[in-house]
């Protein structure tokens, strides 16, 4: 033991010297460790699949081979390993490195091939070939009391359980924390007896997770507390403390790390042969080297569990305590610092991958969702600001329209407006039409009476100018006498007697008579036809009235106006034509028939104009 411790001391010293540059070493270790974890994970998967000893052996061999290769390739080691040893469990039974320093990593890996890998990688048991040649000097080391190992593992398990309990807090567990803790421990109890013991002891030891206590224990060399073994566990604790302090997000990291280190299935472990277990235990002894980095702890946590069942049977790891204790006593503070730093760093680094990912995922998730919420709110607000609620049908709030959009016309409103407008238009149009139908001027104009009257007026004006000019220039007495006759005749026309005198005479015959007397080639067909038609209508109307059928007064009024306008227009036309013909004829016609004709037409003004024209013709 002493020699061991001595050697350990020396080794530790040597390491201590090196640990002066621990930062670099740690860094290196960390780098390696991360890699290892990956490796472990991979191999574990394989193991689970195969699940039997052979497979495990094969795996172990492979791993060893891999480890060797790695060792060969990587000459630079964090620790100044002088005497390497075979790391593989199989080989470990036969070959044991004399130097613990060299042995440390392989021992840690011993329990399970996967861990072996990790240890290989970490500790660089590089000089494997030489280790093979090393004789079994480790035999005495295999004696260590099982209890210690148990304790050590127990610590590990405690931590493990605690960690699990902390991390695997499902809602159920939160409701019954104590239960959950037990439940997590329960499966292990069923499979492996020792675990229970550890569980029992766990809390007590955990309570001493105080560094001061730990120091005291170390200094006192209390065998029961075995702080050297827990050393790694302490670090676990501190690691966990740091982790918990870091935040909830990092719990995921821890979980991943722990699961990564993954405990082998109890069944698989149970199948391990006794010899192997012994060999493993021996290696475990050697594991307790002065290099208690977290990687060691990690391995321990898994290794211990694996060995837990074997614990009591397999020989203790006697020098482990001493080694570690000795190492730690020498380089306590350094180790503590290093280990803590390592643990935190490793945890941090190991967590960086998943933890940071988780952190970022969480942050990113919240960021994205939050941003989306903000955007949605903004959009809603913008929409509400830019739009105005429109009055929908039946007063209900309808769609929203943009404020700068013109108010959309309401269909029903538009239809109503159109209907009223059409009604108004139709009404006004109808009224207009009715007014027209009863309007003499309109009807007279429509029958060209107005144009003819205009033309007649123009002719009359023209003749009047000629008469005046003739009068000014002087005319002979005969002409003046004729003009006097015409004037007298014209004056006589205004007498009512003369008007009434000719009222009863048959219109058609009288007109023809007058035209014959006038002697102008004018066919009064239009005038006569109109007179006949209108008289016929009057006759029919009177007949129906006599029969008792009443006519609408308004219709009668309209018809009267229409008839009058039409007849007047025809009369004016006739006079206009007669005047033109008379003027064209160039010879003065008889004045009397013109006046009579005009009288017959019962239009005083026309007669007057006719008289004027006759006078003008007389003058001509």
């Amino acid at each position: 033991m002493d020699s061991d411790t001595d050697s350990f001391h020396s080794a530790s010293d040597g390491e201590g010297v090196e640990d002066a540059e621990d930062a670099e070493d740690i860094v290196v270790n960390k780098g390696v460790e991360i890699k290892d974890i990956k490796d472990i994970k991979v191999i574990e998967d394989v193991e689970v699949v195969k699940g039997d000893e052979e497979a495990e052996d094969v795996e172990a061999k492979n791993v060893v081979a891999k480890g060797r290769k790695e060792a060969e390739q990587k000459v630079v080691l964090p620790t100044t390993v002088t005497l390497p040893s075979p790391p593989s469990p199989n080989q470990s039974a036969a070959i044991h490195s004399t130097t613990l320093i060299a042995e440390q990593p392989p021992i840690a890996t011993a329990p399970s091939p996967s861990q072996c890998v990790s240890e290989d990688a970490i500790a660089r048991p590089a000089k494997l070939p030489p280790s093979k040649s090393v004789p079994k000097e480790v035999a005495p080391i295999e004696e260590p009391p099982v209890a210690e190992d148990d304790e050590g593992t127990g610590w590990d398990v405690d931590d493990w359980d605690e960690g699990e309990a902390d991390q695997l807090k499902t809602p159920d567990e939160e409701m019954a924390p104590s239960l959950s803790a037990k439940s997590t421990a329960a499966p292990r109890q069923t499979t492996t007896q020792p675990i229970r013991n550890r569980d029992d002891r766990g809390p007590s030891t955990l309570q001493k997770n105080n560094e001061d206590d730990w120091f005291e224990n170390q200094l006192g060399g209390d065998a029961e507390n075995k702080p050297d073994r827990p050393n790694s566990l302490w670090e676990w604790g501190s690691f966990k403390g740091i982790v918990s302090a870091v935040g909830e997000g990092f719990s995921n990291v821890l979980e991943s790390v722990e699961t990564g280190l993954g405990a082998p299935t109890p069944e698989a472990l149970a199948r391990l042969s006794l010899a192997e277990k012994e060999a493993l235990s021996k290696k475990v002894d050697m594991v307790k080297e002065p290099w208690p980095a977290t990687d060691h702890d990690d391995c321990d946590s898994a290794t211990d569990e694996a060995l837990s069942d074997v614990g009591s049977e397999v020989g203790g790891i006697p020098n482990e305590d001493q080694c570690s204790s000795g190492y730690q006593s020498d380089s306590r503070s350094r180790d503590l610092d290093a280990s803590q730093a390592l643990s935190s760093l490793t945890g941090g680094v190991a967590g960086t991958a998943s933890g940071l990912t988780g952190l970022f995922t969480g942050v990113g998730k919240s960021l994205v969702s939050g941003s989306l919420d903000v955007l949605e709110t903004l959009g809603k607000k913008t929409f509400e600001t830019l739009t105005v609620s429109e009055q929908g049908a039946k007063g209900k709030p309808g769609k929203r329209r943009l404020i700068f959009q013109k108010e959309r016309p309401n269909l029903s409103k538009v239809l109503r407006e159109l209907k009223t407008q059409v009604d108004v238009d139709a009404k006004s149009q109808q009224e207009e039409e009715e007014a027209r139908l009863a309007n003499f001027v309109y009807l007279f104009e429509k029958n060209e009476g107005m144009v003819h009257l205009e033309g007649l007026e123009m002719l009359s004006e023209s003749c009047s100018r000629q008469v005046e000019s003739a009068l000014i220039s002087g005319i002979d007495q005969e002409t003046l006498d004729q003009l006097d006759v015409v004037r007298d005749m014209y004056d006589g026309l205004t007498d009512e007697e003369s008007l009434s005198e000719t009222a009863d005479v048959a219109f058609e015959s009288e007109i023809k008579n007058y035209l014959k007397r006038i002697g102008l080639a004018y066919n009064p067909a239009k005038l006569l036809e109109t007179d006949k038609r209108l008289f016929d209508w009057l006759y029919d109307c009177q007949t129906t009235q006599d029969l008792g059928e009443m006519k609408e007064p308004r219709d009668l009024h309209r018809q009267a106006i229409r008839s009058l306008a039409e007849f007047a227009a025809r009369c004016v036309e006739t006079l206009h034509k007669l005047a033109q013909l008379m003027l064209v004829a160039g010879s003065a016609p008889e004045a009397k028939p013109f006046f009579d004709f005009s009288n017959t037409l019962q239009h005083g003004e026309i007669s007057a104009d006719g008289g004027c024209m006759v006078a003008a013709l007389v003058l001509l």
Partner: protein
Amino acid sequence: MSYAYLFKYIIIGDTGVGKSCLLLQFTDKRFQPVHDLTIGVEFGARMITIDGKQIKLQIWDTAGQESFRSITRSYYRGAAGALLVYDITRRDTFNHLTSWLEDARQHSNSNMVIMLIGNKSDLEARREVKKEEGEAFAREHGLIFMETSAKTAANVEEAFIDTAKEIYRKIQEGVFDINNEANGIKLGPQHSPSSPNSPGGAAPMTGSGCC
């Protein structure tokens, strides 16, 4: 029926050149091969649309006979537009244009738009007056020129409407005083006519008689 403006047209020209046929084609869109001699003046009317405005054209179709020449002069007054028509198959109708133009210029307002129309363009084989001669005459006297065919209705509408457009343009330019009916332009009725006049009431000419 309501209109914004009423333009008075007068159609003048030698007898038999197709004045009445042009009017018939324009107002009734029909052609009457044999037409009675016009006594004095006949009337036609039609609504057209220019620049979105309804314009009523009141057309005075005068007799082309020399005997009526004296009375037709009486009708020039108050015409906004005149269609001076000649027959492209009769050189003499073209030769008389100058006298007709003198009459029109003498008895109408100076702003009257005159459209020179070479009618019977469908009788190309019997053409005696080249189109270029008509164009030259129109250019010389500041007239609008157009060859038409009352038979085929070629350019008939255009002749009437282009004249109306020219009158309308002059109105827009302020050349015509639309409030002076002597220019041959009347504003349409602004509102429906008042109550019907009695026959005796329609005596605006009472004081206009001579003597």
